[in-house]
């Protein structure tokens, strides 16, 4: 039983380390916040034009980009930028971006997604062997 739980936790850790998990989670939370604070029922929002549907579009966009960032991590820089832009648009169009909280979560989450770099899927990152000689020089930057 314990081994099973441990395997699940290891699997989740590997899942989390191979994608921008926390940034994506923040983007999803930002989208949910923007939709929640819009206060419109969805049927009214769909029939009421842009003013009433903006929160669903922008909040839905944040959730979408968050989920896609988790599914397609190699495109996380693009998705992070889109998340930040949508979060900023939500501030203008959707009830101050869900009372500001949604916009803040979106900016932070989008930035985290943008800046994400893949880690190794193992439980711990392997420490460099002391016996292995350090490289004489490293290329910094791209």
């Amino acid at each position, binding site marked *: 039983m314990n081994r099973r739980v441990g395997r699940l936790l290891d699997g989740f850790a590997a899942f989390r380390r191979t994608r921008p998990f926390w940034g994506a989670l923040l983007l999803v939370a930002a989208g949910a916040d923007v939709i929640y604070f819009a206060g419109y029922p969805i049927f009214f929002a769909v029939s009421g034009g842009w003013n009433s549907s903006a929160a669903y579009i922008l909040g839905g966009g944040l959730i979408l980009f968050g989920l896609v960032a988790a599914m397609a991590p*190699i495109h996380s820089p693009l998705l992070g930028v889109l998340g930040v832009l949508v979060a900023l648009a939500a501030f203008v169009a959707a009830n101050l971006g869900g009372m500001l909280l949604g916009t803040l979560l979106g900016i932070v989450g989008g930035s985290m997604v943008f800046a994400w770099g893949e880690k190794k899927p193992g439980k711990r990152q392997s420490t460099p062997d002391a016996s292995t000689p350090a490289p004489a020089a490293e290329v910094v930057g791209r």
Partner: protein
Amino acid sequence: MSTYQPSRRMQSLTVIVAVLLFVVTWLALATQTSASAASAPCGPGDANRAALKTVHGERALRPCLSKVNLKLSIPQDGLRSRFNVKEIRRAGQETVKFADGSTEKLWHLSFASFKVLDGATIRTTDNNDAQVSITPDKEASFGGAADSGKPIYTDVWVSAATFRINLLLIGCLVPIDVSNPLLALVTVANSAIPNAITLGGCAIDMDIRYLVSYSDDPSSAGNYPVRLPNTTLSLS
């Protein structure tokens, strides 16, 4: 890349689909907005607003009128007075423009106060299933005196109206249509002796296209155009 991720091609496809979905949804709703702006309620430039004037003070009004009627009904219950109306005047028939550009001749009435003594129902013609019942303990009033004592007049534009009022000797037995010359007589009397005539009535049916309450000295403390003390409002 680890084994926990879909292939590179699948990830690219997912991103493209997601971005396209977002853009298409956005554009679809933006188009909907511009379509609703094009079909503004009263036509381009608000050209289809009605041009109305109140009986007292000739205030100019420019409402945007739908063709939904507000139907006010007080059914007859023997010869009991169920409402009274003070200073009722019939200003005549006016051609009124609607939001869709069509016109209709409406009767323009004005009164200083309208009191429901027993019970009345209000519903709109766009929803026949629901109506609001007004059941006052003593009376519910529309109009009346403002805080300053000046009257709060109410003007109504009706497409049809029938009253059973205690007028002359006919009592509540004969329904009087809004076009009946007797109302012209009442109007003359009200103009000659303002603030004098209050008519009681047993039943009323009014198809109201538009109504407005106004006063030279509006209330700020408590005497508002609609007063419903100890009145039960129920929706059925």
